[in-house]
């Protein structure tokens, strides 16, 4: 079973600066009290957005120019903490189709990949340049080229790092890996039968 091939994502971008944005902030635990993922987009960054609103400021997700954006730009260790898939689900359902950052937490990265949501890394100076480009020209488009491992905006093109397996999974349409795991199942039974437990 194969999903759509994801070679390139382009669209307007949201800049969300700051290191170590954990999945509790992306989607606070009280919104995990549900048996579906439906409607999670309404609660993405709920507490951060409310706190900034109360301080008379606007969270990047609440700015008018962010409406309809499909690319999220972040700094380092994005998605650390809880393994809740609700975090990438909430971002995806809000409209995010690719995340560009300095670095990502392991579990967040693999959860996002399973949804066909590429997380690609740029060096710190390049992220800064990209953030500046988007801030100065929020209406122009950003291109995340998974196939060519690069990110392009109005003011530049930067090399991106995408782990080989993720790049292969996205560009071949194997990012939802369940089909691969169920193929050739006799080999699985063989391994299971040799386990000492």
């Amino acid at each position, binding site marked *: 079973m194969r999903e759509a091939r994801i070679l390139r994502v382009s669209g307007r971008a949201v800049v969300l600066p*700051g290191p*170590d944005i*954990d999945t*509790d*902030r992306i989607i*606070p*635990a*009280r919104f*995990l*009290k*549900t*048996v*579906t*993922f439906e409607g999670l987009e309404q609660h993405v960054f709920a*507490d*951060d957005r*409310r*706190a900034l609103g109360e301080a008379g400021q606007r969270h990047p997700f609440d700015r008018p120019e962010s409406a309809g954006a499909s690319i999220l730009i972040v700094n*380092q*260790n994005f998605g*650390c*903490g*809880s*393994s*809740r*898939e*609700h975090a*990438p689900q909430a971002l995806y359902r809000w409209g995010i189709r690719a995340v560009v950052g300095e*670095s*990502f*937490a*392991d*579990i967040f990265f*693999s*959860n996002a990949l*399973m*949804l066909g949501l590429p997380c690609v890394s740029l060096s710190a100076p390049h992220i800064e340049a990209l953030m500046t480009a988007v801030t100065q020209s929020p209406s122009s488009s950003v291109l995340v080229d998974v196939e060519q491992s690069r990110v392009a905006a109005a003011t530049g093109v930067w090399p991106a790092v995408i*782990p*080989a*397996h993720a790049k*292969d*999974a996205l560009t*071949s349409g*194997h990012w*939802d*890996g*369940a089909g*691969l*795991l*169920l193929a*050739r*199942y006799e*080999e*699985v039974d063989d*391994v*299971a039968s*040799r*386990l*000492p*437990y």
Partner: protein
Amino acid sequence: MPLTLFEKVWNQHAVRRLPTGQTQLYIGLHLIHEVTSPQAFDMLRARGWTVRAPHRTFATVDHIVPTSSFIRPFADNLAEQMTSALERNCREFKIPLFDVESGRQGIVHVIGPELGLTRPGMTIACGDSHTSTHGAFGALAFGIGTSQVRDVLASQCLAMTPLKVRRIEVSGNLAPGVYAKDVILTIVRRLGIEGGVGYAYEYAGDTIGRMSMDERMTICNMSVEGGARVGYVNPDDTTVAYLQGRPFAPAGPAFETAAAHWRALASDQNARYDDVVRLSAAEVPPTVTWGTNPGQSVGVHERLPESADGDSLAFMGLQSNQPIAGTKIDVAFIGSCTNGRLSDLREAARVLKGRRVATGVRALVVPGSQAVRAAAESEGLDDVFRSAGFDWRGAGCSMCLAMNPDKLSGREVCASSSNRNFKGRQGSPTGRTLLMSPAMVAAAAVEGAVVDVRELLGAHQ
């Protein structure tokens, strides 16, 4: 060729190389709970798949269970709905469920080990980041998301990339009043909350070797707070002794055979590591977090760093260069998969015996499992907690992530034995968390403020 435990266990469970370059890894034990599994079962049904290995799958309810009344239906309609969904799914797919009536219910990372489900050499998966806890037994235990829970249900496998291995050697004696919690907080502080990304942490050295299984679980539990998805300790006599007689552990001659296999899994003498880090136990102080991630901590006698992050300070209402000791608290929480085991409750009770919680402090203790609760009661620990003014509750995750009615309100400050001090983690968007050992939480509860537990323990000697 000498190998690490990681390599031995990985090789034994590797099925094949997938076209993406990842490894298809067989999962020997799958633990599920009510929060991250309902969508996975729905995906399974939508594709017409079934559960491949129900005999390797076990369920419990922990995240959303109330801790003061277990009467069904739960007062919280959403909690009731999630519990019913888990019950329905377990019935349909013939998965054993340890529910609140079973006497075996509890936090998934507490009951797996205490039932003997968790054993050396296993690959373990659970839809929860603190699955790293099970590595204390020399298992490779992975926290996963819901789509991966679906994969394990359907195929009993995960698509994984091998991790690098960093050996963390801790040597020497911990000072009295210093605990495993302080060791792991110090490791996370030193190596950073992102330092472990891409790594499994192998905890070794004579300090770890002398630790009980409870203590090793505390250490492995918080590997993920350092960015490492997996943490483990090589199996030894302590591991084997812990497992003997556990309900799901092998019995009779089969136990001896298994034990010999377990011991042989330990990393070989000359195994190669991607990195080695050393820590002297004598340098580890009772440690307290001051910020909004678990790497932002100081020794109880230290001041906050000069260069402390401004955003974290503003949220916490603290200032750089101020002492952490003396920080007033409103709530004391003892529990969680990090520190909700019997030995944790004993240490906290030792501090509380003959003392009272400070006026104005709300204090609760939530045992990690029904078995922990029963064992504590048989030792009279519940009386110690109650006499001190603590609420003695039923088992669950409770105020670690506040998906049940146990929450902070407003900007309350909580001294907590849990694992995360993220903004809003304990149920109030503006609530504040100070992570520390259970004994330190008990001391803070008595004092109404952060205090070195050794000052209270010393008074007893």
